[in-house]
């Protein structure tokens, strides 16, 4: 495993040569990612640092390699069921619903959200914003093309969230896949439909900056399985930023095994699986 001295040099190189700052990423997983880059590229830590300093394209590629991008359509179905039955209905009578997917990866989470919104008749009034630090996954998200073979569980998840009702087992919804995506088994492809792909506004954005890249307050912020890569200090900073950019009674949705531990906790009321933004005294 790479030494702590070498990690320090790598962190310093990113900071000197770019605006990326990974110093508040989790120590062990960051070391592991860098180690993997060194092994995959068969280079020493010193050479890696040199290249980071001299080659901007290499640096950008390294940022993409450091990030972990695993995701699924309707990942963690229980969360989507809560969203469907507990959260989204609260916005039925609002004229708009603004949603930010922070750390959207290759987009499966965004498509899951749009499919759900459409079934609830809320698609047209929704505004969807999506960001990630990794430009390659943003491009994948915009295309909405996914492998079929490796992702059969997407369909299981879809069935659980879109076709079954855990509150009423008799009820089954008949939602055909083709309404939202085409499956081409021969080409091994799941292709999201055009009306979905065109909708979200995508932007490259680094959460470490601690600012909101849009001129909007949000009703819903999803940031799932992203801040697990951050240390408690950076987590708290990011969650405070979310709190400042959520409308009152808006919801923050973290990953299934995440919770708010630091002082940012005081801005929220914890509900099953969600955090609701509390009313604060000063609005400005």
């Amino acid at each position, binding site marked *: *495993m790479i030494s702590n001295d070498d990690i320090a040099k790598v962190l310093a190189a990113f900071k000197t040569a770019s605006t990326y700052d990974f110093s508040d990423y*989790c*120590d*062990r*997983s960051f070391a*592991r*990612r860098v180690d993997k880059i060194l092994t995959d590229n068969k280079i020493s830590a010193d050479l890696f640092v040199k290249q980071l300093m001299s080659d901007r394209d290499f640096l950008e590629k390294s940022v993409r390699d450091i990030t*972990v991008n*695993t995701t699924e359509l309707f990942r963690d179905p229980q969360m989507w069921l809560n969203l469907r039955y507990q959260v989204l209905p609260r916005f039925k009578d609002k004229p708009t619903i603004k949603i930010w997917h922070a750390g959207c990866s290759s987009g499966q989470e965004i498509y899951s959200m749009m499919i759900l919104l459409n079934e609830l008749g809320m698609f047209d009034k929704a505004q969807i914003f999506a960001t990630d630090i990794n430009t390659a996954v943003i491009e994948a998200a915009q295309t909405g093309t996914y492998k079929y073979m490796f992702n059969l569980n997407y369909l299981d998840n879809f069935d659980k969230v879109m076709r079954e009702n855990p509150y009423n087992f008799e009820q089954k919804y008949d939602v055909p896949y083709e309404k939202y995506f085409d499956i081409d088994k021969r080409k091994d492809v799941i292709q999201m439909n055009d009306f979905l792909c065109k909708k979200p506004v995508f932007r490259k954005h680094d959460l470490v900056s601690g600012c909101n890249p849009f001129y909007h307050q949000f009703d819903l912020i999803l940031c799932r*399985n992203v*801040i*697990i*890569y951050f*240390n*408690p200090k950076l*987590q708290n900073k990011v969650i405070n930023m979310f709190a400042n950019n959520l409308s009152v009674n808006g919801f923050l949705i973290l*990953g*299934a*095994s*995440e*919770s708010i*531990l630091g002082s940012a906790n005081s801005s929220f009321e914890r509900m099953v699986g969600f955090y609701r933004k509390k009313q604060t005294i000063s609005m400005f």
Partner: protein
Amino acid sequence: MESEYKAIMIGGSAGSFQVVCKIIAALPADYPLPIIMCLHRLKHVRSGFVEALSIKSKLPIIEPHDKEPLRNGRIYLAPANYHMYIELGNRFSLSTEDVINHSRPSIDLSFFSASYNYKRKLVGIILSGANKDGALGLKSVADGGGLTIVQDPKECQVPTMTTASMNATKVDHIFTTKQIIDFLLKLT
């Protein structure tokens, strides 16, 4: 008595569930050390695992959340579908990196980070299992000066994991389930 160890890490896969049940059933409610378990689960057994183990245990069994601080006297179980690290400062950290050795959680990863954190104050135990995950992890425990134990391959339902561990490093003890329990009880 102060134990010379700070944590016990257990890795297991196929055939380890019954062994784990026996071990945790034998621990008293005031067992002072944290027990950290990284077990492979069958794909469809996502939930209900904690409940099943809790029935047997006098200690609380917890699937830690990300950055949750580690406390003594608890049994921790790596949550399904995440890798689980122990970070310096004794907090858990989760990750969704790709599977390693077909496994997420990866026993190796958990053991690496625990041994980095606890060095010689760690006890690592590998139980029955059908793949090689955990072998390098147990080696890292030994390299860090910690104590290494494998379940006796003769007793394992599937001995691949323990045998691989014994090939990767010279383990301190080869124990039956009963001996593992006696050892853990005597530790404190």
